[in-house]
């Protein structure tokens, strides 16, 4: 599928459908709850990334020249699965199996190139090093392939992120793009209270170009992802709202992972414009 021509309106429609999938799949995930908050904050990022950011398509999913999307914050899995479905990588039957026993789409993604899943994740601070390796590989192969690593702001607590950040700048990996979903919450509460830091200052200090933007702005994300590369790796600090789009989940730490009541599910469906009775 060529997505070059997708308008902002078309992307917004896809993002809207992704939110519906996240609400319904998470609710149907075997009654154990799901990571709603960190998926909902990622929706526009995922949509614009697959819609206009990356050079890859379902019929080229094994082409070594494809851009790579590494979801390092595996807790955002439902947003990845929804986007992979909306962009034609996985069918609906597989999508709705997410987080069911024995599924190929568990709570934390498992690498499966056939499905467009490039990386097993869940353990935080792993993706950026892997992305550095992919970017070094591309350079050795004289490929112009890009590597996009999606992380959470809480994830950047991990020291390994900074080992990788340091090396990416040292190696001059200009086609490596880190996107940090700055939703300002992590498992135990506010990131500012749990481990305060200046993300912009840190990424710049480590030698990266930094673009800060509203992570729910489709035009903003489009511009950022289409900004020509420089000589340095690039970090996009995307300010988001955890749980975005579901009223009672927005900016609520307890919805990092949770299980909705039927009443809450109806409210959530209303919020994202989904019929509660829809399949």
């Amino acid at each position, binding site marked *: 599928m060529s997505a070059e021509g997708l308008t902002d309106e078309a992307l917004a429609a896809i993002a809207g459908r992704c939110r519906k999938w996240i609400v319904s799949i998470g609710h149907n995930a075997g009654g154990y709850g799901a990571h709603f908050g960190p998926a909902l904050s990622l929706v526009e990022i995922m949509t614009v990334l697959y819609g206009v950011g990356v050079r890859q398509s379902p019929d080229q999913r094994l082409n*070594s020249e494809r851009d790579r999307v590494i979801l390092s914050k595996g807790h955002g899995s439902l947003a990845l699965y929804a986007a992979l479905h909306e962009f034609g990588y996985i069918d609906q039957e597989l999508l709705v199996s997410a987080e069911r026993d024995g599924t190929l789409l568990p709570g934390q993604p498992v*690498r499966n190139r056939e499905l467009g899943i490039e*990386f*097993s994740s869940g*353990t935080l*601070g*792993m993706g*950026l*090093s*892997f*992305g*550095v*390796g*992919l*970017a*070094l*590989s*591309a350079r*050795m*192969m004289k490929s112009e392939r890009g590597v996009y690593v999606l992380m959470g702001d809480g994830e950047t607590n991990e*020291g*390994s992120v900074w*080992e*990788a950040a*340091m*090396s990416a700048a*040292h*190696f001059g990996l200009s086609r490596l793009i880190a996107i940090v979903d700055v939703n300002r919450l992590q498992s135990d509460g506010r990131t500012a209270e749990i481990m305060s830091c200046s993300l912009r200052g840190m990424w710049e200090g480590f030698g990266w170009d930094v673009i800060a933007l509203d992570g729910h702005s489709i035009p903003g994300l489009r511009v950022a992802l289409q900004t020509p590369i420089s000589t340095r790796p690039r970090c996009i600090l995307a300010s988001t709202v955890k749980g975005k789009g579901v009223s009672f989940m927005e900016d609520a730490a307890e919805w990092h992972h949770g299980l909705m009541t039927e009443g809450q599910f109806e409210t959530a469906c209303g919020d994202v414009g989904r019929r509660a009775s829809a399949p």
Partner: protein
Amino acid sequence: MKIPSGRGLSRLGPRGTFGMALLDAAKESDRIVGLTADLAITSGMERFRVQMPERFFNVGIAEQNLVGIAAGLADDGWIPFATTFANFAAMRSCEFVRHHLGYMQQNVKIVGIGAGFAMGQFGNTHYSLEDVGVLRSIPNLTIVSPADCSEVYAAVYAIAASFAPTYLRLSGVPSMPCVDQEGTSFNLGEARVLRSGTDVTFIGTGSMVSVAVRAANQLTARGLSVGVVNMHTLKPIDELVLNGLVGQTAALVTIEEHSVIGGLGSAVAEVVAAVMAAPPLLRLGVCDAFPKVGSYEYALEQCGLVDNVIATAVERWVRGAA
């Protein structure tokens, strides 16, 4: 592959031999890349760095990143050899090894240099006596522990040719003895049976194979029938050879420059424990403590990992049991 003279390699030591083998193998395979965490010189990789700069990456003192980057390279079909001290490879970056090599099965070759007591006066921060125990429980990981420098050379080629996430454990020091393995060949996963014996059989790995051979020579001179097996691949362990020893030898002794918990001795015990009428097993290695620090030879002596001490202990054990 033609293995250079064993004595020449022995003078280079296990690390120098590794570096030489890696460079030779990389000349034959353009997929091999070299990485290190600030230990290029001491890993013997200087010539590789100079001759193949486009295929060499020094990531600084950052072992987690070392493994993560190597995995990203492997994902594209490169064959990365990544070096650091054995204890850092196994423990500082342990979860990266589990995730990338174990869970995602990336074809990375981690090279743990200075295993066992090779770091001498550096002391316990640099000794690696737990690495096999830590890594052996990770699924999908092959663990190789060569007995001498010729075997290091052969192992590098074999590992490069085998699509398997691997930990290569380099024990021993420069001038380590060459083990006479005439009549056997090096194949991953296949123990080398150096000799057979009915009274007792030594199973050694890495640097301790040559010690086992010398202890066996002493015991043979004292009238015992002694076998020696080189278990160079610790995982998957050669169950065929181990099961074959049952009924052929009256007692088993494992020897390793590693803790007696989790390493070769444990791996052998896990196999023979389930075998009816298996011979008794004596596990020699480093007892469960941080040993006193000293030179390589001093450390081995403190732990009784010396041929005549072993010969005496094993003779007493075997004759006492008889």
